[in-house]
Structures are given as C-alpha cells and as structure tokens.
C-alpha cells in the first residue's frame, strides 16, 4: 500500500458571505482588490523557502528536521514573525528559534535581538547559537565582552537578571527587532516583573518558547498570548467569559472550542512527538543509582571532615558558608579532592596541623576509591563509550590515570582547555577514545549523542545542571537508550541528594517537561545551599535522613500537583488542538 488515501475537504465561509448576500449587505469596493492581492501574496509567501534553508541543510554543525523548517517558515511567512513555539519536549524548539533568528538576521528583518532564558540555560543558548548558527550572542553575566545592554546587537540575558531595575530600564530604552523568551511559561502571571518587562520591551517581533503553554487555567494562556498580540483576545474578562466553562477557568466552553483553535492556530505552533515519530528515534533513559558502602577508612575520612565542617558551621564566628560548602563538595568527590579539602581547611584554621596530618595519613591508606572500583567493573563489561562527569580536576586526573594504566583510551575535557583543544578532544572521543572525563564545562553545549553511557561520578547539587549533562547525549540523534550511572557513598550528602532526586522524585528518567517547572529559575546556589544547610543542621545521620525525607515529600507533592494540573488541563484543552506546522487547518 503506497498510495495516500487520506484527504480532508472543507468549504469554509468564515466571513458569512452567503448570509450577507441573502441579506443584501454590501461593502465599499475599495477593499476587494486589496483582498484579492493579499491572498495572492499570501499564497506566494506560503511557498517561499527560507533563504537559509539550503545552507542549514548542508551544514555539518546542525541537523535540521522537517518540522523545524516548517515551523520557521510559518512564523516568517504566515505569522508575521511573532509566535508561540510550543512543541512537545525534545523536538528542538531552540533549533526552531535559531532558524528564525538566523533567517531574520540574514535577511535584515532583525538587527537587534534579545534572548531571555532561565539562568541555567544561558550557556547552552550561547553555545548553540554560535556552534549551530554562527550567531555570536553576548551573555550579560559571565561574558567578558559584555559592556552594557545597548552595546550588543545580539544579547543574551537571564529572566532574573533582566528584571533588575538597572538592566530592565536599559533594555526598555532599546528598540528590539526580535525578542526570544525561552521557558515562556514563566511569563504566565501578568503581575510578575518578568511578564511586565516582556510586555513593556519596545519590540517588533516576539517568540515565546514553552513545551507547556498551559499549566493551570485559561487566564495564564490569555496572559501569554496577550504578550504576543496585545488586545488580540480582547480583555481578559471578555476572553474568560466566552471561552471558560467554569469559575476556575480550567475547562473550555465546548461551543467555542473550534473558534479558539482557529485563533490559536494563528499564533501557536505545536508539533507533537507522535508526529515526528517516523523520523525521530526517541530513546529511553535508564538510571542506575549506585549508593555504595564505603570502606572503613573512606567512611572515617568523610566523617572526620564533615564533623570539622559541621563544627565550623555552628561556630560563633560564622565561618564562610560558601567555603564550608565547597569543602563538603570536595570531600564527596574522591580521596584526592578530600586531601585538597583538608589542605584548605588547615589554611583557614578549621583544622589544626595535627588533625591535618592525621587525616592525610588516613587518606593515604585508601588504595582505590570505592566509586572508581565499581565504575571500573562496569566499564570492563561494556564495550561502548563512557562520558564521566566530575567536578574537580584532581578527581579527573585520578580517574584518567587509573583507566589509562588499565589500558583504556581516555580523553579529558575541561574549562582550562582552549576552544581548539576542546574541539580536538571531542573529535578524539568521537573517533577513537572510549572514555571522556569532563568537568562541568563539558556539560554545556557539547553534543555527544554518539555516546550512550553517562557517569555522574560527582553529583551536581542542582537538578537543572544534571539534566543539562544528560542532555549532552540524550538528544535528537541518539540511537540507543541512555544509561545514567549516578555515584555516591552511603551517608554522604551526595547520597541523600541522589536518593531524593533519582529514587524519590524519579527525575531525569525521561525528557520531562516538569523538571524546569519544579526548579524554574533555580540558580545553582539556591538549592545547593538549602541542601547543605539541611545536611549541616542534622544532629546525626538519622536526623539528616529525616530532614531530607521531609524535603522530598514536599517536592514530591509539588511534582504531583504540577503533573496533575498540566495533564488535566492539557488533555482537556490544549492537546486536543491541532496546531502543528504540518497542517494548517481552518475549522470554519
């Protein structure tokens, strides 16, 4: 069977022309020519290819898919450059936005472009725009090139930084040709600074990106659409009176379902995973949580270091909180990094020389870290590539040395390397090396989908960063299920966090859209400090465990609420709409 039989035919008369004719209604003649001309032009524009399509299709740096090109074409040719890109997770909304940005930039439609994203995605955006589209966005926070908001034509800023009064005023003094807002569900509340800023930015075009355009009620949808097309839906009250079916605005009046779909189809583009299933291979994530029993000496070393940190934490002098947290992190990584922690603690008078020497001697008795011993067994069994994430150079070198001694080809990737060295390392990993050991720098931007084993040797305390690391390999183009090995030693802070995130909340097991909703805007320090405080304030292991259990229950409840509201509302309203760029239906 290779013949297409699926044809739908419609006869829309959305202006009620037949009825008007029957009633003898007529109009002034001036608009007839314009109407016919505009339809003719629209017909032509719909078939216009993007000027960058061919160069993108042949580019080595980016793999462009049909639905992304169709979405970009629709935004440019039919939606006037402003749209809500609401594809389901994992379909490449960033790429769609990148195509639109590039097309507008190249054709002169946009000269000044601003991207607003959650803080955790800044570097990823910067890297993707540069590596895939050759668009060099300046990032306001950690980019040395940043001067001020008006000095850069291509500017990248976090939602949270942009609302600071000095930045928001600067941003508002510039006319932006295109503003792109990632994770735009953050704009759902019209009273927030973020929403008000986006509303007030002088701009020609706006792109909102979110896989979850509706979370709670129609009012939120109204708020976001109103950013795109102010006044298009009338006033909030008019909109809700017409389309909402209950006082919570959580269900849609079925009488106006088609009408709302028609309105949204002129603003929202939503491609589903089902539609792309034939050319996209969606693979699973298989987590392996390895909370290992430490050796006696490992346990003793960690306990001694933790006790010293805890004592300093509670001390009247109120030692530097962030420094204490960094010692704790060092102590969870490896024996080598524990020695580094001890040295720093000695220098800052948290331990004396005697204690330092005693604990260094203890550390020296540890032959091989339990985490490495376990990982080595796994690598021996698997004849495939491994991407190992660590936090510290000392741990990176330790693992590399051990694996090399045992005959493995290893490449390193870290923030000390120049762009060329990074490029060479990535190439070496793709073509020859079985193992890449990467510090946090490797979590950003690199596409390593030729590998399907990730090891979180040191656990990130920020869930968004864990997701980003997994996202390096579990992305479009990954052909295999991705195995995620997460390491921690029993009763360490990492073990409690690991248990909380992977076992209780079961995060990261699929490309969840609710992860960013749970932790939206979470700066690494926010969650990390919270968890560290809980760990420090526990009197003993069972007390710490209780504190993390309570924390986990609260988060689980939040996760449940988010899932329920999204599922309920999306099923009832949004997911029944066909807003795909594949088909342009008109239900009239």
């Amino acid at each position, binding site marked *: 069977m290779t013949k297409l039989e699926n044809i739908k035919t419609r006869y829309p008369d959305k202006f009620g022309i037949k009825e*008007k004719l029957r009633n003898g209604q007529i109009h002034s003649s001036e608009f007839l020519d314009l109407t016919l001309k505009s339809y*003719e032009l629209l017909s032509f524009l719909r078939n216009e290819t993007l000027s960058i399509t061919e160069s993108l299709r042949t580019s080595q740096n980016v793999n462009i898919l049909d639905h992304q090109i169709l979405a970009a074409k629709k935004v440019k040719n039919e939606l006037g450059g402003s749209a809500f890109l609401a594809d389901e997770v994992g379909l490449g909304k960033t790429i769609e936005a990148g195509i639109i940005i590039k097309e507008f930039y190249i054709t002169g439609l946009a000269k000044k472009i601003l991207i607003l994203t959650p803080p955790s995605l800044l570097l990823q955006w910067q890297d993707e725009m540069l590596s895939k589209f050759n668009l060099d966005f300046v990032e306001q926070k950690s980019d040395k090139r940043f001067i001020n908001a008006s000095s850069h034509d291509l500017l990248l800023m976090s939602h949270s930084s942009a609302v600071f009064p000095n930045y928001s005023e600067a941003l508002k003094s510039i006319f932006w040709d295109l503003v792109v807002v990632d994770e735009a569900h953050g704009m759902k509340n019209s009273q927030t600074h973020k929403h008000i800023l986006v509303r007030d930015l002088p701009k020609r075009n706006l792109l909102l990106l979110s896989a979850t355009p509706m979370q709670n009620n129609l009012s939120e949808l109204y708020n976001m659409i109103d950013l795109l097309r102010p006044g298009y839906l009338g006033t909030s009250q008019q909109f809700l009176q017409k389309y909402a079916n209950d006082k919570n605005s959580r269900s849609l009046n079925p009488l106006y379902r088609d009408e709302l779909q028609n309105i949204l189809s002129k603003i929202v583009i939503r491609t589903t995973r089902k539609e792309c299933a034939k050319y996209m291979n969606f693979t699973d994530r298989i987590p392996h949580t390895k909370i290992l029993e430490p050796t006696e000496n490992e346990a003793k070393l960690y306990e001694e270091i933790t006790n010293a940190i805890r004592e300093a934490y509670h001390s009247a002098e109120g030692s530097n909180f962030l420094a204490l947290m960094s010692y704790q992190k060092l102590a969870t990584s490896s024996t080598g990094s524990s020695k580094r922690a001890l040295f720093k603690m000695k220098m800052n008078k948290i331990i004396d020389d005697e204690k330092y020497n005693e604990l260094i001697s203890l550390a020296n008795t540890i032959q091989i870290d339990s985490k490495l011993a376990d990982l080595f067994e796994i690598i021996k069994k698997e004849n495939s590539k491994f991407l190992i994430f660590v936090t510290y150079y000392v741990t990176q070198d330790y693992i590399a040395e051990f694996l090399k001694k045992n005959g493995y080809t290893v490449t390193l990737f870290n923030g000390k390397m120049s762009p060329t060295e990074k490029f060479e390392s990535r190439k070496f990993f793709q073509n020859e090396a079985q193992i890449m050991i990467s510090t946090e720098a490797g979590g950003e931007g690199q596409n390593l989908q030729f590998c399907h084993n990730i090891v979180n040797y040191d656990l990130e305390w920020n869930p968004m960063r864990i997701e980003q690391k997994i996202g390096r390999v579990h992305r479009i183009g990954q052909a295999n299920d991705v195995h995620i090995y997460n390491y921690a030693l029993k009763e360490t802070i990492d073990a409690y966090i690991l248990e909380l995130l992977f076992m209780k909340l079961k995060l990261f097991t699929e490309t969840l859209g609710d992860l960013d909703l749970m932790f939206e805007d979470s700066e690494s320090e926010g969650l990390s400090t919270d968890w560290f405080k809980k760990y420090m304030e526990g009197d003993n292991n069972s007390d710490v465990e209780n504190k993390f259990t309570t924390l986990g229950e609260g988060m689980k409840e939040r996760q449940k609420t988010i899932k329920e509201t999204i599922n309920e509302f999306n099923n009832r309203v949004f997911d029944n709409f066909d807003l795909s760029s594949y088909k342009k239906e008109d239900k009239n």
Partner: protein
Amino acid sequence: MNIQQEIEKLTLSYFKTINSEITEENGLYEISIPEKYQNYFRSSQISLTFDEKVASEQNCELINPGNKVLFQIITNCNNQGPIILKQTKTHTDNIVIRYHFFVDLSGIHHSSKLFSIDIDLKTLQPSNVTEELEPGDFSLNDKLIPENITKSYDVALEELKQQSEEMKNQFIEKANSSFKSDFQLFCSRYDSEMRELDDSINEKEENSEYRFGTVKKIESLEKEKSTLVENIQNKHQILINYELIAAETILL
C-alpha cells in the same frame, strides 16, 4: 511574480485605501496612520522602506516577507470578506454573482490559488462575464433572488472543483510521490528484516522453538510497521480548503 514589487504595491495601495498620508524621500516612506487604524498598528506614524540599504541606514521598518507591518496589512485585507456591486455599461436586469475562492491545498507540501467563478443567479448556470465593469449603483435587494443564493454557491463550488481539478491532481500526485518515498524508506527496513526472519525459519524448520520465537518476532515487527504506516499517513494527510473570501454582484 516579482515578490518585492507585489509587496510594495500592496503596502502602498493599502495605506492609500485607508486614507493615510504618504511622503517619500530617497526610498524612505513616512506614513501617517488614520485614527481608526492607530490601535491596530499601535502607532500613529510608521517609517518604512522596501530597500535593504535604506533600512540599514535608517531606523525604519523593512517591508519584506516576515515583517510585522506587512503581516498586519495582509491580515487586515484577508479579514474583510467584502461583497461589492459592479455593473456593465449596457446592463439590463440580469444578475451574476462572482464568487472569489481561495483554494488552499496543504499537507507535506503546500499549494494555493485564487479562483473567480461567475454564476447567473436566474439560470443558476456558470457564466463568464468578460465585459468591462464599473462600480454598481443599484439596489441589491430589488435584484437578488435570496432563495437562489445557496443554489448558486453550490453550482459555483461544482464549477470551482472542475476548474481546480488539475491543480488538485498535480498536488495529490506530488504528495503521493513524497508519501511513497517516505513509505519505502521507512518500511523497507521492516520488510527486509521480516523476510530475513522468514527465511531463517525455512532454514531451521526442524527447530519448533526457534520457529515459534521467530514468528512472534515477525508479528511484532508487523505491528510496529502498521503503526509506522499510520504515522506516515498522518504526516502526509492532505487538507483541501475551498474558502470563500469575497463576492461581487454584477448587474449585466
């Protein structure tokens, strides 16, 4: 069609039609927006150009595909659904309705075209008005036969389908070709795997356990293939819109 010329023509005639004041200097147009339209354009004055060079030097709208003002103009024009009166110089009492349709074929490809169909309101037959027309100054209510409107529309639709048949067939042919190529590309690997499995059964006929397992595998592959075919069909689904966008009532 020279797209840039058409865009320029539409933009300027639109602003003239809505009574904007237009001034031009070295390719830079200053357009004053009448009060009635200021809310729609969210401005009382628009500076625009059709020239990339001017746009790079001046702070103004570059009107080309993707531009917001162009989009607003097209949207405004597309949402009128006008019905107007026309007449020939030597008219009698005959009324012909000229229906304007926008035929839009979409799927994995896209094609659209305007069609105008004339229908004699009395005989309900297709007509072809070729005489020069001038604005009509007659009362529509005296000339119309309301009960014939729906009938005339139905006749117009039939005529439209005939006139657009070739366009439709070409589109379906193109869509079928894409569908076939997708179908072959994605289904062939299932077919070859199933064939290999089937062959392996014949080779190892005596082993019934193997046979049973392999048949199960083939069945599961068949199921996967049928889901895939469904997905491919959905992606390639064709939608044909015969949209009525305007009408002229012509006194012949």
